[in-house]
């Protein structure tokens, strides 16, 4: 069997994903605290939290919760694995959606009213961000003529210059995907009470640990998609990633949670205006090539 670099990167993602994701979460919490005028937790706090969660003794609330959450984690990891392995990104979208559906099923299965509301809101958010994800991929394809991560990465012109609107749309749904305010309706990342925790209500100990772990993996490949937009030079990529990361946390701290109607409407309007508004002219210009 021949090992390509792609395979190595994909395996690296599976092994190192939690470490990178956990560090991202740690920096996130410190930055958030500093923005609020607090000192904040140590950098490794997310890892302390995770190891504590896995040491808890708790019976799952029913027989379905654990299989659903494990499936969620497996499909999230698979999404990232296929992504870094250079598979067709279109296929990856389906795997990603399946992963989300398992999380929603797990929340529904608990029977907690808070989790049920969280699950419903998560479904609404999926409806809100899914069109933009598809537009992003179509845009990337149109620019690089490929659905492969590495071929898009190798494109010479910086994608951010060709697809600024798509990038803005992506930024918008990134806030949703990372469960940040103002779109943290389904579940929030911060310390909160029942309704805001929604999706993860009635999940405790190791089960919650798996959800956290999946979220860390998710944040790694979401930022990898952002990376694609700046991949033409290393410096641009670093600046682009740091700026995006900072921006998402800033937005998280300065906005109030919106109602689901506003989340859905604004996401679709952004998709239509920034996403399609960028893609259609771009398609007409590049069609001949």
């Amino acid at each position: 069997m021949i090992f390509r670099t792609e395979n190595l990167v994909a395996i690296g993602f599976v092994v190192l994903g939690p470490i990178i994701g956990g560090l991202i979460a740690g920096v996130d919490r410190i930055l958030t605290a500093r923005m609020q005028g607090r000192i904040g937790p140590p950098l490794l706090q997310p890892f302390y939290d995770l190891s504590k969660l896995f040491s808890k003794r708790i019976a799952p609330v029913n027989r379905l919760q654990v299989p659903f959450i494990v499936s969620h984690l497996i499909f999230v990891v698979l999404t990232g694995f296929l992504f870094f392995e250079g598979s067709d990104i279109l296929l990856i979208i389906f795997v990603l959606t399946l992963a989300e559906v398992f999380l929603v099923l797990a929340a529904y299965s608990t029977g907690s009213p808070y989790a049920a509301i969280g699950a419903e809101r998560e479904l609404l958010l999926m409806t809100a961000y899914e069109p933009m994800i598809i537009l992003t991929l179509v845009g990337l394809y149109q620019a690089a003529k490929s659905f492969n991560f590495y071929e898009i990465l190798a494109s010479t012109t910086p994608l951010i210059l060709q697809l600024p609107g798509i990038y803005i749309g992506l930024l918008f749904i990134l806030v949703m995907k990372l469960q940040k305010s103002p779109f943290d309706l389904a579940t929030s990342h911060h310390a909160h009470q029942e309704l805001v925790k929604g999706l993860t209500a009635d999940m405790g100990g190791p089960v919650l640990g798996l959800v956290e772990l999946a979220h860390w993996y998710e944040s790694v490949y979401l930022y990898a998609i952002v990376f694609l937009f700046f991949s033409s030079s290393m410096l641009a990529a670093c600046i682009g990633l740091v700026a995006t990361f900072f921006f998402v946390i800033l937005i998280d701290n300065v906005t109030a949670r919106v109602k689901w109607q506003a989340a859905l409407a604004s996401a679709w309007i952004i998709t239509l205006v920034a996403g399609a508004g960028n893609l259609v002219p771009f398609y007409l210009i590049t069609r001949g090539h």
Partner: protein
Amino acid sequence: MGGVERSIWIVHYDASSCNGCDIEVLACLTPVYDAERFGCIVTGDPKQADLLLVTGGVNNRNVEVLKSIYGQMPEPRAVVAIGACAYSGGVFSECYNVCGGVATAIPVDVYVPGCAAKPESILDGVLRAAAILKERRVALRSAPRNAKKGSTEEGARR
């Protein structure tokens, strides 16, 4: 901070307090005291909590609620009773419906003195409880796995 649990998720229950102690608990989360620097997070879900903070005394109505919250918390867990009311009923101890301190319903690990308790002493109490949590976690690791009931007997009856 060797020997202290570094991740302490807290569920806060206001039994029958005058709200004085509750305000001081909330003060612990503000930038001045910033409980998160010790890894403390306040959660609303007992199933995700390690530490139960109780303010106020126990009365005939909320004794079952308190037991239920405690029952849903997974092992290892600890309880901190805050203020004079949580110790003995405090100024409310003579009331017709008050049964007494938190210990009349559930086992208490740390008592924080004061009426109202100061944020500094609440943080101190939480960190003492964190040391107890750490001990329990170590003890639980060597204990047989069948003791899953921590999360549980009373909780299941909810």
